[in-house]
């Protein structure tokens, strides 16, 4: 379902995903992922089984966005936890 080399087209698209902090553990740092057209970021998060309680920031092409955003081909998504300081 998610190999960088998999063919695209016919309702499929490639998006670039980067995971930050604890999200990387047991997953990957960055990867191209094949998704169906119309996939929302929240579906991607579900697919990656990220712990939702840690999800702090979503960047889409460098800008903050929400998990309901629909992805487009070649989008770049960064998923980050957020920790408050002290």
């Amino acid at each position, binding site marked *: 379902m998610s190999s960088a080399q998999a063919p695209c087209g016919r309702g499929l698209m490639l998006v670039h995903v980067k995971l930050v902090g604890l999200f990387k553990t047991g997953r990957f740092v960055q990867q191209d992922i094949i998704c169906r057209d119309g996939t929302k970021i929240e579906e991607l998060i579900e697919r990656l089984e990220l712990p939702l309680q840690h999800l702090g920031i979503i960047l889409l092409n460098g800008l903050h966005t929400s998990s309901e955003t629909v992805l487009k081909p070649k989008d770049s998504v960064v998923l980050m936890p957020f*920790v*408050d300081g*002290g």
Partner: protein
Amino acid sequence: MNIQTTDPVSESAAVSYHRCIVDLHCGTKEFANVPCRNFEDVLGGFGRSFQELAQRQIDNAYCDENPLIINTGLLTGSTVMTALRTYFSGYSPIKGSKKGLPAAMWSTGSGKFGAKFKWTGLDELIFENRSEHPVYVVISESDSGPKVELKPAEHLLGLSTHDKIMALQKEYPDAHFAAIGPAGENWKNNYMGAVALSTENQLKSKEDKCRFAGRGGMGSLMGYKNVLALVAQSKDKVRKPSELVKAANLNVIKGGGSVRIQPLSRGGGGGTWAAYDVLQEFHAVPYNNFRPAGNDIPEKLFRENVEPDYHIQTEACYRCGIACHNNISEKNVDGNKGEFLAKFDYEPLNLLGTNIGIHNAGQAARLIQLGDNYGMDSISLGVTIAYVMAYNERHPEAPILNGARFGDYEKARDLIIRAGTGDCPDVGQGLMRLSEQLGETAYAYQVKGLELPAYQPESNPGYAWAIAGGHMSMGTYGLLTREGKSDLDSWVRGVTEDKLHIVGFDMIGLCKFFDIAKGIGTQMVVDCLKSEFNFDVTIADVRAAVRRAFLRGLALEMRQGYSKDEFRIPAETIDKPNPHIKLPNITSREFIDQLEKRVWEIFEPELEGILN
């Protein structure tokens, strides 16, 4: 506290707190049950102490009329999770206006001292004047109420914070402690003295795992008063938590914002250290005096890069389920824990690591430990050293002090020791004074005389309105990075409404991790007040009291001579935008001018008469 009402908002005088005023000059003590003036007095912490400070006109922090007020919050010592805070308030030696007047300040820390202090039956201790000889002060419980005794402390002189606590523990094995280090003793040349608070882990392991009330030089004020340590001696008075408190505590651990702070092993985010990874994504980890260079050097202090070589252990204060401390020790060849080095909280790690060009975890840990042992605020210390290094980089032909440059561990170490022993007032008296003396203030990362914490000001122009230092008294530091807000309306609302509520934690006795996103104006806190004290208060009551307390702090700043120009982040961040920071620019001159105009339009009318 003596509580004779269920309505502390309209009948605040029916709640009284037990106070002792000690005249250090003649040794007299005056105990009283003092009726509360308002709900802020009931909540306690700086909500009460700032009302006391407002009654005094102080022109110099080191004068007999400047009190040192030690108090707790209403919930300190209760069954509510994180309810361990102690507050130290007074006019600050380090934070002050350009007119030369000291600002009112509070500082707070956890550990178990606060709970023990509360359990003696005392709610507030005020030190007036100063003692001619070094003393330590024992606060203990007795059948006739709390007792306060002054004891000679010559034997503690010169000892580190940790060693003072260890020495006192031998004499008072059932007590907890608050102690200054050599920096506070050398108050004349060191304005950034902190107060160390003992923890259960420290007393059991004998390792220097104190918590600190660091900001604002309250340890130096304590040193000026010749009080080297406090001993709180009482039995532990832990009741069974009520169902309401149990539910709140469970929510703090499982459902609240604290989950991000909890240990990785429990599915948490791994403590404040994890902020490194996130901020680096924006190239916003402070580096070489707050000038991130868009490189990957800060990653050297990522946890994943430190863990292979060091032993990291997550620990907690007494009965706290959040466990926010990451303690780092050497790793023995067998992989087990070796010598304890230091706490790895985000602020000290960055400010005595990446921000001074130190990228080796062991070296950063040693510097943190050294600053802690001398009893200095790691934020003020690290940021002042970073400035010295930045100055020396800019003036290779005429460097100052020992010529320290970014990454020079030995020279950083030397500056810490000299500042801690009072031999380097240029560092010890803080960044505002040093940068003004050198005539180069644009890259001095301080606001209103208090050095900035480890969040780039480019991501937080709200620092300007923090009333007791950076991120801990103005919660706007995540507004851009986390929430992505770069419009003026969001920032005006953030500064003047939502994010100032972070200071409520510094009234009530709880850590910010109790619910960092929402503050204390929540049903969870209202439920705890009902359960612990049978108070009928609303969320709106709590929020109104926090806002009044915040505004009082702002009004006190104005009364101490601050001009509006002083409510501004360092000029470099406005005039020379850092191209490497991957965040929208919200510190342009135009944005800042508009923000200032609109924030003051809201705050100014509310400040009128608030100190009366």
